[in-house]
Structures are given as structure tokens and as C-alpha cells.
């Protein structure tokens, strides 16, 4: 599964594609199950040059019933910096944020989740 992400031109905010527009939460993003649909959306997003910068597709995995990025970097983008838990989207809290925090993706090392949650 995939989602389409970018940074918003006006403020750099991490945003996700949803039916031709952009939303701030991954939990509200359009999820693509096929390569063709994802590629089409990416091509369309690249035409929105005054709205976003550098749109690209990310891989997702299931985490506690929510979709979470496989890549650790993308999970930080979707949450916010781990040293300031009140900054970024993580400040809202809730099930989707918690699922992102708990997501493992490619991670294998023990203790990682605790480190993320500590700050």
C-alpha cells in the first residue's frame, strides 16, 4: 500500500494526497493499493507547483488498524520531531498518532519504540 506525500509550499507542512487535494494527517490520506493509481496521482500532484514541493510516494504497513509508513524517516515526518512531542502532528494525540508511534515497519531493534515515546 502507498500514500503520496509532499511539503506544502507556503509553510513547509508535511501533507498527504487525498483525491486531488492535500490533507495534513496521514490518517486522512488516500491509500493506493495499485501502482497505476499511485503513479497517476503522483503525476497529477507534480503539476501543483504553487501548492506543494517535491511530491513522492511512500510505502505503508498496517499498524494497530492504521496505515503507517514503513520508513522511519517518514514516520517522523508524519508525527513530528521526537524531541518535542508537542510539535508537529503528534501534538494532537489519538489512536492514529499512537499507531504511528507503535509502528515497526522495517525496524527490528528493541527499545526503539521506547526511545521514540520518551521524547
Amino acid at each position, binding site marked *: 500500500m502507498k500514500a503520496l506525500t509532499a511539503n506544502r509550499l507556503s509553510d513547509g507542512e508535511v501533507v498527504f494526497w487525498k483525491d486531488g487535494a492535500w490533507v495534513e494527517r496521514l490518517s486522512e490520506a488516500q491509500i493506493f493499493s495499485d501502482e497505476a493509481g499511485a503513479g497517476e496521482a503522483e503525476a497529477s500532484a507534480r503539476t501543483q507547483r504553487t501548492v506543494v514541493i517535491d511530491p513522492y510516494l511512500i510505502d505503508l504497513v498496517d499498524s494497530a488498524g492504521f496505515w503507517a509508513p514503513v520508513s522511519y524517516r517518514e514516520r517522523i515526518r508524519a508525527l513530528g*520531531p521526537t524531541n518535542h512531542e508537542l510539535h508537529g502532528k503528534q501534538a494532537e494525540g489519538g489512536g492514529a498518532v499512537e499507531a504511528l508511534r507503535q509502528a515497526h515497519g522495517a525496524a527490528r531493534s528493541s527499545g526503539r519504540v521506547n526511545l521514540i515515546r520518551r521524547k
Partner: protein
Amino acid sequence: MYRYDAIDRAVLADRTAEFRDQVRRRLAGELTEDQFKPLRLMNGLYLQLHAYMLRVAVPYGSLSPLQMRALADIARRFDRGYGHFTTRTNIQFNWVKLADAPDILDALAAVDLHAIQTSGNCIRNVTADPYAGAAADELEDPRVWCEAIRQWSSLHPEFSFLPRKFKIAVTASPHDRTAAKVHDIGLLLRRGRDGETGFEVIVGGGMGRTPYVGPTIRAYLPSDRLFSYLEAVLRVYNRHGRRDNIYKARIKILVAALGAEAFAREVEAEWEKIGPEGDLPRAEIDRIGAAFTNPDFVADPASGDFEARRAAEPAFARFVRNNLKAHVRPGYGIVDISLKGIGETPGDISADQMDLVADLAERFGQGDIRSTHEQNLVLPHVRLEHVHEVWKALDAAGLATPNINLISDIIACPGLDYCALANARAICVAQDIARRFEAPERAEAIGEFKIKISGCINACGHHHVGHIGILGVDKKGEEFYQLTLGGSGAEDAAVGKMLGPALPIDRVTDAVEAIVDAYLRERREGERFLDTLRRTGDAPFKEAVYAEAH
């Protein structure tokens, strides 16, 4: 401190107006991102993971209270109430909106600050000794030269598009607090046989993916010939530096490829051609020197109840031991302000803390504030009788952690929490280590211990010159960390050697503790960690880390 003149202010006003128009055109779609990106970078505006980041130049790490308050105001109005001091003595704001950037530049210009040349392949902010003008071991105040270099290098037409970025450090003390030997050019002020001052010129140091301790290419350069010589070095680099490969474009690669002697010959030949016409007239150096306001020192001031309080209050005594340094004038001290509170983000400072530092500098510190490449602040001129009051105020604001040069005084780059280039986080690793060594008695017993952490090979966290260096790497999508031992950014500069295989994030602090324990077992009377390591080699430490890691 140097003050801008009318021309400086006009240049800044024009530059900000130009950038305001560029932002407008970008938002209106008249400029593409490819066209706009180099323009915003030339004004210090980066796009990071979560938002735009504005990097503000703090010239040679000197700030006035007025400037610090302006930074606090910017943090409140345009960011999230804080800023982050960097390893280039600059300050970054992490949550900037594009449309606000020109207003921020205006606010900076109002107090003689800007963000020019904080990015791009140009001469960046000069690093100076943060104790300049105050250090007891200083030959003369190096900031006059730093300011002259700032003026010479700002918007320099020949050197604005170098093969790669270029960093210069200047120090006038035998104890190097600037990491001069790992700069593109390190200038060490020396006294010549004739009694005049000059510079030992080191060229081609650096960190990044190919670290080098720079070689000395001229043992003594008369100070009045500095600018023609700098021009010769930069011109040789501009001519021969590689532009085909970004990873081989720094001057260190050129110096290593040619060899220091051959590079020096090229420079000398170019210098000969330039001649003294390329130098600043002495009158200009004197004019710049006169623009620095001399602190209003009192001759032999009373130290009040400083000694009595030090004897009576152990916490104050600990602060004095670690955060107060010898001043050139009797009755004064240099106060280090730690931005490394235990569990805090190294280098971060809130707007309220900025205001407090400004107040203290004004009331007790001759209006002088410095930022250090180790991500701390300094009040360089505090009368000893005022140190207790300064300490109390800092302590109440969480700024009096007595850990300067100790194990929790860790350099960490923003890492993967913010930086688009990073492979792994650095901040949380620093926080975890600092918590492990939180007990001040233990930290003092360990002694001088410099841990430096980078989230990628670009080495903004100076890991190559950490006594323990920690480098974050991406191993199949996971954060792993390579440890190096034996680096130093001081006068005994050295690049650390890799200890062994990279460790997962949850083993890093244990590994650091194992190294520390091995050091405490092995050390002899009076040895720093580096001394013990140099005597024993890395075998005891390798065994400690990897025996415990399995």
C-alpha cells in the same frame, strides 16, 4: 562589538526587499522551485522535514543584548518560542513559514543581523574563540580579524560561487576553542620573532565523509599580509577545486590530492602575483578595531562574597569549577552558559531564556554574549562579585547545568528529527547519554569528555573530532550508530578511529558507559580520557563495548 554603518544597512535593506519579491514571485508561480531554491538558500532558508528552517548568521559568535532580544522576539512571533544554536555558532529557527521569511529578515536587519552566506558554496560565518577579548591565555583579540574577514568575504564577487562551501576559524590562544585544524582555513595568531603578530595558516582540514586534520602551509604570515594570502588560497581553490563531484569538491580534497607542499607552492606563486595591493591598509584594520566597543573594565574590582559563597554553597562551587573560566583581568571571570540541560535538546534555547541571557549580559556582562561551536553561550566579562547572582538567575531558568566540557556537554546535530539529509536521529541519543551520566559527582569524576553526534556523514555534529564520536547510519531502514574513539577538535586535533561494527540505537548509551568504565579502570593519575586512550590503544575499549554488546 562592531556596529554596522549606513552602507551595511542599505545593503541589507536592498537584499531583503529583493528576497521579498522573490518569495512573492514563487508563491505566485512566476518562479519554479528549481529557480527559487538557490535564491532562498542564499538567504539562509532551507526546507527540512517538517517546515522551513531559517539559519541566521551570528558573526564570529558575537551577540549584543539587543540582538538576543530580537532573536527571542522572532522565536515568539514566527517560530514556536525557541531557537537552536548550531555548531557554526549560528542560530536556526525550525518552524518558519515561507511568507514570513522576508519579515524575519527585516527584523534581523533592524539589529544588524542577517542570514546571508549561511548556505551555498561561499565563505560562511567565521568561527572565533568564544572567549576572545577575555581569555587569560590570549595573544590579542582575534575578533578584529574576524570582522575584517566578514566584511571582505561578504558578497565577495570572486568567491560567491566556489566549488563548495568554505569555513574559516581564527584563534589567538594556545588552547584552541574553535576546532581550527578541521576548518577549510584555520588561522592561529602567533607572535613572530620580530615581536609583531602573524598567523600560522592551516589549510585543508575538514570533517564530512573525508575527514582531515589540516596541514600548516605557512608557519608564519605577517598579519598585515593576511588578505592577499587569503585571496591567493581561495583563488587556487576556485581554479583547481573539483566541481564535477560534490563529495570531492572541498578544499581538503584538493590539498590532499596535490600534497600540502605543492598546494602551498601554488598559493605562494599566486600570492606573489597579488602582492601587497591585495591587503587591507593598516588604517582600515584600525578603523574596524575602533568600532569594537571596549568593555568598561573596573581596575582590580572587589570580589565581594564570591569566595565565601563558593565555600558555603556546594552547588555554586560546582558551577564555578566547571562553568567559570579565567579572565585576563583580575576580579573578572568568563561564565559559560550550558545549553545542555540534562534531557534537553543540545543547543536549544527558549525565547524567555534568550531574554534572560540578554538581561544578564546587560546588567552584569558588559553587554557581550557569545555563542560557541559546542552549542553553548558565554558571558565573557562578569565581575566575580556578580557571578553568584548570575548563577542564581541562570539556575532558575534551567541554564546553569554545571557540565561544560564534561560528558553530558554533548554536541548533537538536529539529525533525523529535523534534517532532510539525516539518516538517523542524534538528539535523542544525546539526551539518553546525558540522563545516564546525570549525577554531577560522577560526571566530574570522569573529567573532560567530549561526545559528538552526527545524524549523517556530513558531520554537522563534529563526530570525527569527538573523544567518542557517534555517527548515525541507515542500515536497511533502521537507525544504527558507528562509534569512533580518539578524535579531538582542540590544539591536539585528531580524527577518531572507528571502534567496530555499528550498534542499534538502544545499545549506544550502554556502549558509552562501557567505554567510560574501561577508562576509569585503565586511567593513571591526571590522565584525561584521550590521554589514557592514546597510551593504551583502543583494545580495552573495544573489548568493553563488544564483550558487553553480545
